């Protein structure tokens, strides 16, 4: 215990001496969040819209203003000729065109079905499908409104006449936890996992390999000190630092991206702790394989960056991956951490909802620690 403390205080002094690295460890993650948080935004707003209004009626203007007022579209202008439309799209000056046929208001008043056309620039498939979704929703809302108006405007006799009553069945989707479907709310937990993972794995791997490189490891091995207190002493300071760093990232996410905190801080800290211990164990394992800091850095980055980014459900949903890949995601700790993090922060769920993920994190940490200490013990004596 005393020896662990001796190693830990030595490590801490080394870290404190290197102010620059400490600042990098503490604040760069929060800075990354800022950068990526604004860059990684799948929401589409202010889609440039041109309108070809062949009806020029009250109703047609109502439809256009419902598009503009939604905030998803911004009106570039009205156009008349199809050739002008082509030019606007080709030059990228508009991404969507709403065409309202003549007789739009007239047909509506006769309760006739009408069709409006929305043309969307499909050069980016993701954006196009999102814009199409927005347009569909807006048009559905508009048409529902028209039906309601038509019914309530009819004569009282007709209103009481059951045969004239049109049952309005509308789907009212309700999206929980993130009602505006803001992608930042979904992405920020992923970023937290991503940033914490990289800093924890890299800093741990480097700190052990540095001692190998400089020969201090050999000197320490000559002392009556078993690997366990050495490793605990060495990793403890980094655990504390990366923990603080992770909390800083979460706090800045709350401040900047309105990330809610609906669950328990205690559970959150437990999840972060488990995740970071696992990440550090991975870093340790790397340090037993790598002989130079350069190699350690590369392995650490490769083994944490891509899996956490791609295989964790951070950006791409795991359920839509091929079965084999889905199977592989089971060894990516960020996968479980993300479930727990989203459950705690966005849903305010209690432990019963994600205990399996916490268990998985604990198992990952134990297995990685076990492997690392096995390898270290072999190297040690």
């Amino acid at each position: 215990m005393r020896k662990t403390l001796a190693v830990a205080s030595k490590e801490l002094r080394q870290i404190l001496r290197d102010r620059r690295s400490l600042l990098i460890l503490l604040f760069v993650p929060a800075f990354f969040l800022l950068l990526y948080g604004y860059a990684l935004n799948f929401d589409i707003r202010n889609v440039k819209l041109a309108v070809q209004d062949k009806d020029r009626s009250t109703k047609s203007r109502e439809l256009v203003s419902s598009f503009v007022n939604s905030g998803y579209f911004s009106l570039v202008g009205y156009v008349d000729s199809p050739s002008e439309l082509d030019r606007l799209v080709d030059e990228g000056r508009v991404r969507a065109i709403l065409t309202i046929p003549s007789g739009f208001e007239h047909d509506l008043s006769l309760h006739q079905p009408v069709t409006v056309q929305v043309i969307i620039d499909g050069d980016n498939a993701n954006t196009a499908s999102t814009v199409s979704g927005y347009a569909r929703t807006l048009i559905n809302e508009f048409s529902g409104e028209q039906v309601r108006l038509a019914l309530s405007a009819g004569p009282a006799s007709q209103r009481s006449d059951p045969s004239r009553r049109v049952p309005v069945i509308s789907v009212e989707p309700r999206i929980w936890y993130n009602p505006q479907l803001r992608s930042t709310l979904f992405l920020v937990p992923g970023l937290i996992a991503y940033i914490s993972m990289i800093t924890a794995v890299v800093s741990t791997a480097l700190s052990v390999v540095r001692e190998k490189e400089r020969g201090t490891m050999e000197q320490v091995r000559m002392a009556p000190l078993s690997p366990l207190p050495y490793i605990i002493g060495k990793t403890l300071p980094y655990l504390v630092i990366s923990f603080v760093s992770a909390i800083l990232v979460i706090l800045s996410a709350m401040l900047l991206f309105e990330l809610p905190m609906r669950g328990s801080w205690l559970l959150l800290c437990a999840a972060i702790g488990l995740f970071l211990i696992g990440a550090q164990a991975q870093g340790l394992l790397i340090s037993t394989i790598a002989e130079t800091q350069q190699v350690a850095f590369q392995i650490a980055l490769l083994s944490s960056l891509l899996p956490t980014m791609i295989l964790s459900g951070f950006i791409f949903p795991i359920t839509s991956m091929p079965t084999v890949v889905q199977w592989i995601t089971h060894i990516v700790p960020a996968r479980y951490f993300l479930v727990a993090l989203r459950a705690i922060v966005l849903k305010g769920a209690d432990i019963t909802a994600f205990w399996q993920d916490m268990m998985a994190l604990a198992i990952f940490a134990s297995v990685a620690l076990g492997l690392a200490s096995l390898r270290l013990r072999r190297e040690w004596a």
Partner: protein
Amino acid sequence: MSDQTGSVPSAALEKSGPSAAAIDVRGLTRRFGTFVAVDNLSFSVKQGEIFGFLGANGAGKSTTIRMLCGLLKPTSGTALVGGVDVSRNPEGVKRAIGYMSQRFSLYEALTVDQNIAFFGGIYGLRGERFAARRQFVLEMAGLQGRETTLTRELPGGWRQRLALGCAILHEPKIVFLDEPTGGVDPLSRRRFWDLIGTLSRDGVTVLVTTHYLDEAEHCHRIAIIQAGKLAALGTATELKQVFSARPIVEINASQPVQAMAILDKNANVEKTSLFGTAVHAVLRNASTDPAVLAAALRAEGIEVTSIGAVTPSLEDVFLDVVERVGAA
């Protein structure tokens, strides 16, 4: 050294009476795959002795030291260090020994005092004992007033003495020094050997490897190992006895390299080697007059400025031993 507390754990003292050897190696062997790094090595080192360990790079010195320090398990054979069997109780060995390597493995980003505190911590020193030992190390290394200097800012000689201080902080009875004087100026080297002498007089056994053969003269006894085998063992004087029947003649000549070639062909000369600008020729028997060699050289047009028998140096011994083992 001020030593009131038990400096060496009882386990280390158990079997080592006053007459027992500090280090006792019997048939020590270490293989890496098919490569035999250390081959059936046997020797023993007395308490308080300075024991020099010489050998070319890759001769097996480091492997032997690593086994004696409990870091590497011997393939076969036994080694008792401070009475503790290195393969049975490597941790017990670690408590009994101090180790310092050529890299002066200190934490460069830490201050002098922080390094001492760390090594004190991992050797389990605390309280008054630690305070006393810290003071001892600062005095020994001449680092008083430099406690808060960063280690990386210390000149080589000071770092070397601090590394030695950290290695003997826990008052080990046996110290292993693996090429401890590399990259250090001659004055610091001299001072370092004085420290080793002091340690030895205090009863500490010192096993030291070095590349500087002049330094090896400071050792009480010297072992030369070659290809993992013990090639020679004895005091410097004893080792030089191999030349008792084969005098060494030092020749200073105008063209040393040509002179060597000529001498190599001479029937009286066993072999030659270059020492700086001088040529050392080992004669086949003591009755040969050096003047004969001078005449032979002059006959070939080489100017001889001086010629005469010299007492063999350890370097002569080392080269001789290495050559003989290499030829065998």
